[in-house]
């Protein structure tokens, strides 16, 4: 098995899907010759040509809108939002059109569109390059939201997203792009959308999270194991719709649940996880459900010390797990 980075897993998944199905094509700002600002589509323009790797104008609404049309027509578009922060001009297309077409057309039409978007902070990106957008879409039935944490998951889930018959928003943590490396099998595989994944078995505290924070949790768990605290780590992978069954199972396992997101706290994806646990696990809970999230302030600051204050830090996760374990 080869060890590759998070972003290499994306490139590989795109390449393999384009080789497998000629209906798969890529659209986005600078995705062609430039290979994407993060180099996620590097080499694809050269390999598949300008008809399948299309540079678009700076108009997210158009990128998604064209994607919806092409998808309805039978294509498998992969639309790249250069930063998740820039998705907002396309929200009408995503929420009112892509998510609802199957229902509106009485099942005659569907939108097998994949929208890729780098999200997340910690890269000194400031207000417009650091946001987490999942909560905005995690209330829209008809959408699926996938947020993988490892190269293995990225590859398997991006392929699944492209093959999914309905719209999938695929959020990639931009800080994970080059930070996270991992083993990926050489042979073909696809992972199921809608399933959470136990990343570490433990007995004392359950951490449920997704994206980059999974790694914070795993690092903390490793550290705390030396202190005799055993941490169960569940990676949501698909944050909408939630894999409630696995969430409930993980919460029951220890009765002490820490939910982590780098998004702001109120109305976040983990708030829904908390509600699911509260509804189902009362008699298994041994401590209040704890949410660890960014402060409820509008921006991700640009200034490094302030960014560090706002951005979820690994030691916060460690501290929160210890607090719960000691409760």
């Amino acid at each position, binding site marked *: 098995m080869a060890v590759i980075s998070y972003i290499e897993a994306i490139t590989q998944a795109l390449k393999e899907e384009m080789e497998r199905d000629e209906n798969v094509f890529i659209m986005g700002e600078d995705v062609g010759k430039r290979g994407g600002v993060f180099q996620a589509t590097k080499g694809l323009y050269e390999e598949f040509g300008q008809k399948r790797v299309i540079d678009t104008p700076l108009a997210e609404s158009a990128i998604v809108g064209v994607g919806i049309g092409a998808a309805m027509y039978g294509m498998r578009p992969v639309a790249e939002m250069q930063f998740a922060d820039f998705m907002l001009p396309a929200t009408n297309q995503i929420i009112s059109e892509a998510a609802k077409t199957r229902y509106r057309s009485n099942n005659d039409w569907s939108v097998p569109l994949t929208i890729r978007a780098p999200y997340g902070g910690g890269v000194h990106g400031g207000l417009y*390059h650091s946001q987490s957008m999942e909560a905005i879409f995690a209330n829209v039935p008809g959408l699926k939201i996938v947020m993988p944490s490892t190269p293995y998951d990225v590859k398997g889930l991006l392929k699944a997203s492209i093959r999914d018959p309905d719209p999938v928003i695929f959020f990639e943590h*931009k*800080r994970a792009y*080059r930070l996270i490396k991992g083993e990926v099998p050489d042979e073909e595989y696809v992972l199921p959308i809608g399933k959470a994944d136990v990343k570490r078995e433990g*007995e004392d505290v359950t951490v449920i999270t997704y994206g980059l924070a999974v790694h914070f949790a795993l690092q903390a768990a490793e550290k705390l194991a030396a202190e005799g605290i055993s941490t169960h780590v569940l990676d949501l992978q698909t944050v909408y719709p939630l894999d409630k069954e696995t969430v409930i199972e993980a919460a029951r396992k220890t009765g002490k649940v820490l939910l982590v997101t780098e998004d702001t706290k109120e109305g976040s994806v983990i708030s829904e996880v908390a509600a699911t646990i509260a509804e189902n696990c*009362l*008699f*298994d*809970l041994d401590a209040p459900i704890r949410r660890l999230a960014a402060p409820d302030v509008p921006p991700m600051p640009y200034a490094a010390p302030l960014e560090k204050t706002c951005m979820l830090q690994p030691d916060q996760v460690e501290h929160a797990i210890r607090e719960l374990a000691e*409760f």
Partner: protein
Amino acid sequence: MSIEKMAMPQLGESVTEGTISQWLVAVGDTVNKYDPIAEVTTDKVNAEVPSSFSGRITALLVQEGDTLPVGEPICSIEVEGADRESVKTEDPLKKEKLSSGVQDDRDQSMKKRYSPAVLRLAQENDIDLEQLTGSGRSGRITRKDVQNYIDSVQSTKSENEVPANKEAEDQGQPGRLTGAACFSEAVAQAAGKTGTGQSSRTEAGDVDVPLTGVRRAIASNMLRSKHEIPHAWTMVEVDVTSLVNYRNQIKKDFQQKEGTKLTYLPFFIKAIVTALKDFPRMNSTWAGDRIIEKKAVNISLAVSSEDALYVPVIRNADEKSIKGIAIAVDELAKKVRNNRLSPDDMHGGTFTVNNTGSFGSIQSQPIINYPQAAILSVESIVKRPVVVNNMIAIRDMVNLCISIDHRVLDGWITGRFLARVKELLENISPDNTPIY
């Protein structure tokens, strides 16, 4: 003077690591702030790293060609004057002291705040949470504490039941010995945890005897009874010459007919039971806000095995003849010897009789079998010279000792109860004491 560390800088968004392609300085070199010290390659850019300090390079911490994460130290520089390091290190120390000072081990304010999970587990497993020690913050009993406790009870039980008591398994009730034992296991645990004290060090030649589940149960029952029940004690002596004569007269016949030895004990039990019917207060239990006089007369009988004490129950002893009691006593004794007691055998006693005479005792101060109100021990029957009708005669005498729960019973009622037992025993005769 202090040593500063230079860290791998972040050279662009999304860049998380860099490779030192070339060092531009060597150990011992003096550098000024902003002087380039190394060339770094990332997958985005190549750049020179400027020094953040003026000083002398004391160590290069990575080799050329090494890749390391942003923020990792790459070299150390000895800086003149500024003493930042000592300032920095003070802070975390202070914090640590503060946080460890806040945590007070004796704080038990959360001991009785039970989480839903803890309450459920306690309920499902019949656990008295008062008896557990909490490992959580401020003494809170955690779900894990309860789970560990359940596991430990189960494992100690299965440990000592496997060799001795296969019966439980045959009955499909592994790990549940008795209601009484179960109910008291919690105390045993607490006793085991807190009651060891300081003198528990083993010295050369000492033998460590691991506690069996039964021994734990005994310990906790005794402890609980002694702690909770204000014991009072009294004794009467009874002339049982006529009982001895009567029993000697019929014992052979009885053994032949019934296949069971006729001991004195059934006669004593019969008399006690009859007296209990006359004084129901003796057959009662303290219930905190009231006293419950039990209708059923179930006699708990203290029976010893090699290294444990059991108190199996003769149910509805008041409905049994002397023969019936004799059979029941014999059965229970056999069950104890063969480790075949079932939970039912141990449940529901209302008054305990202790046959201490069987090992020659002539006086004892029994501990009440919690939650009953009294325990009576029948001592050895011994021949003694006593005064009868102003003459000295040799009579068969026995002492009856009783411990009572003074919350429930007073000396007056106990005295009358014992007088009644004495009267019944002293008047035993073939005419008024049928065996059947």
